[in-house]
C-alpha cells in the first residue's frame, strides 16, 4: 500500500504501512533528517512539524491520517515570514547549544507566531512547554521569539 503525502510543496509517494509515524517516513524513507526523534511519545516536541500550519508531533502522526493536508518541516520553514524571522533571531541570540531540539522549537514557535503575532510570555509558555531542551536554552528561546516579532 502506498500513501501520497504533500511535504514542503511536493507530493511524495510512500510505500509503508498506514500507521507508520510520519517521523520515520520523513527521516528514514525520505531522508529529511531535520525533523528529530526525541521520545516517540509526544512528550518532547523534537519532531514538531506543521500540518496545514498547525504544530503537530510527527511521532504521533500516522501517515494515513495526513490525507490531503500539507506538511511543512524545518527544511522549508525559512520560506515563511515567521520561520525566517525566527531563524535569524535564533542566530542573533545564539540560542542553540547542542541544537538537537531546535528544529522542533522553531517549528513550535513558527506556529505560535502565525496564530499570535505578538505573543506574551504566557502565550510562549503555553505554546512552547511541549518542547524539551536538555541544554536549557529556554530563556534565549523566549527572548528570540520576542525578538522575531519586533
Amino acid at each position: 500500500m502506498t500513501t501520497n503525502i504533500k511535504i514542503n510543496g511536493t507530493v511524495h509517494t510512500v510505500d509503508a504501512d498506514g500507521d507508520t509515524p510520519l517521523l520515520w517516513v520523513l527521516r528514514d524513507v525520505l531522508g529529511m533528517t531535520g525533523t528529530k526523534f526525541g521520545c516517540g511519545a509526544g512528550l518532547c516536541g523534537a519532531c514538531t512539524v506543521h500540518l496545514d500550519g498547525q504544530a503537530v508531533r510527527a511521532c504521533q502522526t500516522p501517515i494515513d491520517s495526513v490525507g490531503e493536508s500539507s506538511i511543512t518541516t524545518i527544511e522549508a520553514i525559512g520560506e515563511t515570514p515567521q520561520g525566517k524571522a525566527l531563524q535569524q533571531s535564533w542566530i542573533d541570540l545564539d540560542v542553540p547549544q547542542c541544537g538537537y531540539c531546535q528544529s522542533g522549537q522553531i517549528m513550535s514557535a513558527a506556529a505560535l507566531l502565525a496564530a499570535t503575532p505578538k505573543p506574551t510570555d504566557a502565550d510562549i509558555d503555553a505554546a512552547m512547554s511541549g518542547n524539551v531542551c536538555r541544554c536549557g536554552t529556554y530563556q534565549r528561546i523566549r527572548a528570540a521569539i520576542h525578538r522575531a516579532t519586533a
Partner: protein
Amino acid sequence: MFDRSLRLNRRNFLAAGGGLVVALSLPSSPRRAAAQASPGFAPNAFIRIDRQGIATMVMPMAEMGQGIHTAHAMLLAEELDVGLDQVRLELSPASDALYGNPLFGPQSTGGSTSIRAFWMPLRQAGAVARTLLLEAAAQKWGVDPKTCRAESGSVFETSGSRHLAYGQLVDAAGTLPAPAPESVALKDRKDFKIIGKPHRRLDTPGKVNGTTVFGIDTKIPGMKIAAIAISPVFGGKPKSVDEKAALAVRGVHQVVLTDQAVAVVADHMGAAKKGLDAAAIQWDEGPNATVNSADIIRQLKEASKTPGAVARSEGDVEKALAGATRRLEAVYQLPFLAHATMEPMNCTVHVKKDACDVWVGTQVPTMAQTTAAQLTGLPVEAVTIHNHLIGGGFGRRLEVDGIEHAVKVAQQVDGPVKVIWSREEDIQHDMYRPYYYDRLSAGLDASGKLVAWTHRVSGSSVTARYFPAGMQNGVDPDGVEGADQPPYAFPAIHVEFKRVEPPAVPTAWWRGVGATHNIFVVESFIDELAAAAKADPVEFRKALLSHNPRALGVLTLATQKAGWGAPMPQRQGRGVSVQFAFGTYMATVAEVEVGTDGTVKVHRLVCAVDCGLQVNPDTIAAQMEGGCIFGLTAASHGAITLKDGRVEQGNFDTYLPMRMDEVPVVETHFVNSAEAPGGMGEAGTAAVFPALTNAIFAATGKRIRTLPVDTKLLKSI
C-alpha cells in the same frame, strides 16, 4: 603529550585522514578544485590553509553544545591572524597522538577541560602557522620577517605597500621547517582581537534550518535501521523471540540476537519498532531480578557507618569536636540520575571483512575505535570513526556501550545498519550518576565559629571502573571532588571515601561529576552550620574565606546583584552557594517561592563567575544558563529508581525535564580576571543544587537533605 602532537609533521597528519566538514563558510570558486589538489600548508594537526586562503581548523574536542568548536577556532584564529569568516571547521579523526586531551592523555571531551587543556596548544599552533607565513613572505620580498606583520589572512610589509594573502604563501610556507611550538611568540593579551570578545557560534546556522547532521542523521547507501531491546533487567539476556511474527511486519528484514539484546532490522524505524513489539521477547533475567532501590540504599547506609579511605585529614578533628560547644551531624543522599540527552543513543556501523566504519557522536573517538576493533577482531587502523556533532553529551557519550551494542548487531547484518535506541531504552539502559550517601559532622565553638568538619562519601566509584589508575589509595578523586578541598579555611578537616558498588546498576560520569554531588553536600551543611550559629549564611561563609579573594569576590558580586538581605514575602527566600570547581570560582543566589502545597517556584538565579580570562563571553553565559537549568532539573525532578532489577522511569513523563513554563531567569555576572581560563561546561550545574535547597530553607525552615526535593515535605498545611 601536546608537544608531541604539535610536532607531528604534515605527512603524519594527512595520513591520519580527514574529518567531516561541519561548518562551511566557503566562497564558491572555480579555482577551488585546483586548490584542493594541493595539500597546501599544514604546519600541524590543527591547521591547513589552501591556496584560496581558507583556513581549515581541525577540532580536537567534541562539540555537544558547549560552544567549544567556536572557542577553539577563536584561539587558533587569534594567533593565526585570520577572521572567523575565513575559517571552516572539521571534526578530528580518532587519534590520541594528534588530538589527545593534554590533561587526560586520550582524545576525550569531558571534565570541563577543553579550554584549560587546549588554551596554550591551539594558540601555539596558530602562532607557528603565522610565523611560517611571515617567514615565507619575508623570503619572497627579501626582507627581515620582523619588518612584516600578519592581519586578516594576509602578510603586510609594515613600512611598505606590499602584501600577500595567505593563500599566495602556502606553497612557500609549506617548505619551511616548523619552529617548536613553545618557541614562538604568542600575542600579548592586550593585542587580542578575537579572544575575549563575544562571537556568534559557528555551528548555529545549521542548527536552525535542519541541516546539521548528528550521528542519528547518518545516511549511508544501503543502510538499514534497527530498533533494539536490551534486557530490561541489568545483566539479563534474551531467552526467546517470535522471529516469524517480527519478520511478518512489512519492511522488516532480520531479527538479530546478541548476548544482551534483540534488534530488529528494517527499512525504517517505524517497521523496526513494530517488529520489535511483534517479537514478544522473553528474557532470562539472571541474578539481578530482585534488585530494588531500597536495598541499594540500605547497603549504602550500612557501609557508611564504618570508615573509608582517607582523602584528607588535617588538624585534630576528634579533639576539636570533643571540645565543641555545639556539634551537628547530618546525612545527605543523592539519587541515581540518567543523562537523557535529547539525541537518543544511536550508532551506525558497517562491518566488512577487512574494515569497520562507525558513524556516531562520541566524546571519546579513540575509545570507540578500540572498542570496535576488539569486538570485530580487526586492527585498530581498520576501524574508522566518523564523529559528529553531538545532540547532548552530559557525560553519556564518554561511554561506548552504545557502540558495543551496535557493532554486535552489525556483525550479523550484511551492509550498514543504524541502531537507534527508543527513549525508554535510552533511560532504562543509561549508565547512571551514582547514588551517594554522605555522612557529615561539624563543631561550633561558643562564638559560633566552625572548629572541625568531617565528611564521609559512600557510593560507587566511576574512576575505579573507567580509569583505575586514577584511584589514590582507595580514594576516588572524583568521589571527593569539592569535598576534600572546599574553598573554606577549616581549622580541622577529615574527608573519607567509601567505595560501595551497587548490584547491577552501571554508574558513569554525569555533568558536573564529583562537584555536582559534593558542592550540594558541602554548601548545604555549611548553611546548616550558619543557621545553628544564628549567623547570616553569607557572613558565615565570608568569615571562612578571608584567605580566598577570588571566592570572596564572586560571593560579594552575586549577593550584591541579587539584593541579598532585602526583605522577602512569606514563604519566599534566598539561598546562596559558593564553589571552586573546574578551575572556576562561582557564587550563586537562588530566589524561590514555596507554595502552601509545597510546590517550589524558582524565580531567579543570580550567578557570579570568575573563570579567569574569557575566550567567548557569551558562550560562558550560555553555559551558566544551561548548566543551571540542567542542575535545577535534577534537583527538582531527577531520580532513577529500581524495582525488580529494572529502572522504573522510561520517558519524559516519568523522568521529568524542566520546561519553558517552569524555568527561572538565569543572570550571569562576571568578575574580570587575568588568571588562566577555567572550565565552564559544568560549573553552573554544580552550583545550583545547594542554592536551591538553601533558598527553600530560607523560605520554609525545612532542610532538604535528600534529592530530588520532595515537595510533600514542604507543605504548610
